């Protein structure tokens, strides 16, 4: 019976072949380490956020007179409302954590390099969508931090040339962040996750076209690949278990650690809290915004600080495979960059004084500087490594990749490929 049903479907929809080619039998490099778990984890958190979000929306009221109270209603009266809300609020931080680790892995192992540029750029789009979604969701509890966070961020659009003021009013639907703003942010906060799902599909189609990168940086021939199931289903689910332990510790024991205390005060448009800070995942970019003395310059710098990553496929000009694993200077620069990010995050968190502004400016300079330095270092390092003598395997690999690049266009011309 089961076979007949599947056969009936297969004649009308490629179910069996899809499952075999893209899920169970999907060829995966055998040497993936646990850093390759985070894409799967990001997908898991996305599902978790959509699920908890839909159920929260059944009890939430997007109206400035009711929204703050409706959160209290969810926390106190709704069955397991506290659980749904803490899963959702912790899930936001978890989402950024896994995405940042996912990006850090890509940078470390050089996975952004050809032929995976489109994966990197769709990923960058996903990051921007995620940031927008998180930002709009943060307004919904209508606490003091929600209100002033939204005020500051919508104000960034004043930097738009000529029509800046009108753009800000248009975004808010009022002269200040108000009921109109709250309602539209709720509508968009519900919409954006579905845009994210769409972008994830594009990301995955690209992945299944170019296949996973791997720690060696070598494009493994078919014989080095193993089927996704059961080898990587097991590995991903083990990683998921570890992730869920950390996640549950926060959901059940430390849920308030990720919520600013000031957000338990209802929004007051007449009084800015003494110390406003964004959520932890925006802190480095916020520090860059604060470091630039000029307003428009600050907004441009903050936007660029997120977008700089997309230039990496062109900024990193080294042909040594394997990313930072086989490139000592790039590796050093990578760790310095991570430290710089942490410094920026800390500077973004503490109240501004003239010393922290100076440190922030130095860290901002280093942040952008490292993207420019990598263009010079990557080539110099490659020359140095070749002069010092590469391992014979790597040398043979680079030679074969160079050959492939010559062969490929020839094939295209002769028309036996696509």
């Amino acid at each position, binding site marked *: 019976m089961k076979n007949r049903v599947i056969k009936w479907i297969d004649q009308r929809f490629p179910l069996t072949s899809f499952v075999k080619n893209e899920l169970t039998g999907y060829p995966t490099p055998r040497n993936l380490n646990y850093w390759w778990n985070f894409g799967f984890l990001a997908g898991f958190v996305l599902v978790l956020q959509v699920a908890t979000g839909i159920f929260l929306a059944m009890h939430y009221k997007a109206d400035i007179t009711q929204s703050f109270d409706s959160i209290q209603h969810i926390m106190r009266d709704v069955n397991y409302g506290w659980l749904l809300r803490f899963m959702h609020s912790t899930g936001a931080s978890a989402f950024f954590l896994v995405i940042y680790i996912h990006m850090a892995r890509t940078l470390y192992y050089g996975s952004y390099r050809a032929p995976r540029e489109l994966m990197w750029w769709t990923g960058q789009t996903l990051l921007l969508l995620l940031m927008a979604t998180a930002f709009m969701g943060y307004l919904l509890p209508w606490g003091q931090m929600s209100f002033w966070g939204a*005020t*500051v961020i919508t104000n960034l659009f004043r930097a738009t040339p000529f029509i800046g003021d009108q753009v800000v009013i248009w975004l808010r639907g009022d*002269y*200040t962040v108000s009921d109109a703003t709250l309602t539209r942010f709720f509508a968009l906060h519900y919409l954006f996750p579905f845009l994210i799902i769409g972008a994830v599909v594009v990301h995955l189609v690209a992945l299944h076209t170019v296949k996973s990168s791997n720690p060696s940086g070598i494009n493994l021939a078919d014989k080095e690949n193993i089927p996704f199931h059961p080898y990587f289903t097991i590995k991903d689910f083990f990683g998921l278990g570890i992730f869920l332990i950390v996640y549950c510790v926060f959901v059940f024991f430390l849920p308030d650690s990720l919520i600013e205390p000031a957000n338990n005060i209802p929004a007051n*448009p007449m*009084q800015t809290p003494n110390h406003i800070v964004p959520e932890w995942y925006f802190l480095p970019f916020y520090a860059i915004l604060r470091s630039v003395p000029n*307003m428009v310059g600050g907004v441009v710098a903050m936007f660029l600080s997120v977008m700089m990553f997309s230039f990496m496929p062109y900024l990193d000009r080294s042909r040594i495979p394997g990313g930072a694993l086989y490139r000592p200077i790039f590796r050093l620069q990578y760790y310095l960059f991570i430290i710089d990010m942490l410094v920026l995050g800390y500077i973004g968190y503490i109240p501004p004084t003239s010393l922290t502004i100076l440190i922030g400016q130095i860290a901002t300079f280093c942040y952008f500087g490292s993207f420019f330095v990598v263009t010079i270092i990557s080539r110099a390092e490659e020359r140095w490594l070749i002069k010092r003598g590469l391992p014979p395997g790597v040398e043979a690999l680079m030679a074969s990749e160079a050959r492939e690049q010559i062969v490929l266009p020839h094939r295209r011309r002769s028309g036996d490929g696509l």
Partner: protein
Amino acid sequence: MAESDALGDTGRRDFLVRVTTAVSGVGVAAACLPFVASMNPSSDVLAKATTEFDLSGMNPGDMRTVAWQGKPVFILRRSLEQIKEMEASNGGFAPEPDRQRVKQPEWLVVVGVCTHMGCVPNREGPGWLCHCHGSQFDDSGRVLRGPAPNNLEVPPYHFVAGNKIVIGQA
């Protein structure tokens, strides 16, 4: 003209394709307009345009915060020393004489929204300090220390009989 010639007239066909594309492009843009416009302030929001406030009961040195268009407006009754001090200086890096920022030197009326990121500065000592990013303003609402690029905005206002002020109308 033979039928084959008419069919082969690609110039005519291209022209029609271009015109159709252009007209439908305009149509799509026109259809977007109501959606974009719906996000602009609605009539009830626009109706909040003016605020009236009674100034009696404010002593020299007192400050009140009044909501106008949902934004805080600072009304400061300045003492003689404050007026003298403000008239002596031209402010910080957005210089502007104090006379141009007030209608009566005794009353300073400014929008209490930092010109940097829109936070509400707090009254601290003489002037205001914005806690978000550390901008400092003097008793004329002029910026003394960044990152705010401009002085606090002076809203349109006028005094009416009975010691009252109407904000939102010059």
